[in-house]
């Protein structure tokens, strides 16, 4: 059941099984439960920082750029490097914080952003 206390981010994927292997086995997200959306059972995954994503299978015409929030980008980068995530970019310092990017099996560009407040000098 959806918990309205949390935010859920929807990611459209080409193949649910392949994407599940990627997000769970490679990225280390936890499989939570399924939710029925438009008659389909869609998996909910929980990220290391407690946030949730929902995978919805559909034909992808144009991959998206999805930004996921992390509380520790370098930890994730090290973890993903160990798991040999393909096309994993090096950590980049942006105006909004520290980020790493890679692609999921559906071609979506995933950016993990650790938001940082640079105004608090």
């Amino acid at each position: 059941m959806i918990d309205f206390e949390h935010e859920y981010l929807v990611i459209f994927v080409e193949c649910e099984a392949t994407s599940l292997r990627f997000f769970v086995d490679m990225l280390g997200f936890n499989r939570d439960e399924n939710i029925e959306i438009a008659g389909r059972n869609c998996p909910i995954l929980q990220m290391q920082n407690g946030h949730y994503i929902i995978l919805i299978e559909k034909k992808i015409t144009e991959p998206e750029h999805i930004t996921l929030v992390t509380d520790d980008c370098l930890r994730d980068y090290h973890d993903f490097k160990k798991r040999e995530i393909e096309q994993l970019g090096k950590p980049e310092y942006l105006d909004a914080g520290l980020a790493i990017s890679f692609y999921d099996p559906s071609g979506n560009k995933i950016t993990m952003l650790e938001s940082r407040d640079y105004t608090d000098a």
Partner: protein
Amino acid sequence: MNSNEIISELTYDAYFTEVTGRYAVNAVFSGEVDYTIDKRKLTLVPGSFIFLNDDTSYAHKIASDEGVSRISIAFDPEYVNDFEDSVLESDAVLLDQPEGRRRDRPRLLESIYPLQGDIKYNLMHLSKHVDNGVDDQLLLSEYLNHCLLNYYHLYRSEVTSRKASLNFLNGTTKNEILKRLCVAKDYMISNYNKNIRLEDIAEVACLSVNHLLRTFKQAYQQTPHQYLTKIRLRQAKYLLRNTDRPINEIVDIVGFECPSSFIRLFRNSFNVTPGKFR
């Protein structure tokens, strides 16, 4: 194999003498640490970190009832050399000389730097991992590498560009003046809560008062008095956020003479009154 060392701890009482042999990046998150470097006496306060070269010998002391939360990184000189080779050298040089170009060990300007931006976040994460007993050397090395990266980035704004803004033609003169200005700046940071006179700052920096005023303004785009006020306001902000002390007491602690001028300065700087900020 290198021998970097990371200490993250909450300490009440400690004294270390003749620490040397490695580059040091030391930061405090709460409390204060007193340093003696040659004849200089410095105090590291929350919101700042100190950088020391590998051939500097120093002592530091902690004596606090409330405890001092700190992180101390001792970088192996070889690690810093490798970092400079891999990050600062061009790919062409690295391909020609895969062993790295032999160079003198870097001598960087020893000073107290603001603990802000990326280095603050990365040191806090590193501290948390060490506290949690993480011993994955590659993970720790990732943070160390980024801490150096952040420090070199900060060095460009805090040292290189300030040196460039000094109105002297001779590079050696610029180096020497900035070094003395850093002594002045560190003295203000270390004694922010005391009644400091401009003459005292000039004396420790070995500059005349006029020379100090003129060159400080060139390098820091503000007067020493404005700089000191900013340090006091920053410390007040820290105390407001992290303690229950009444505002009047904080005014005394950070060295302001009266609450009304403190409140006015605080509001002008941060667009919020101290009470609302708390």
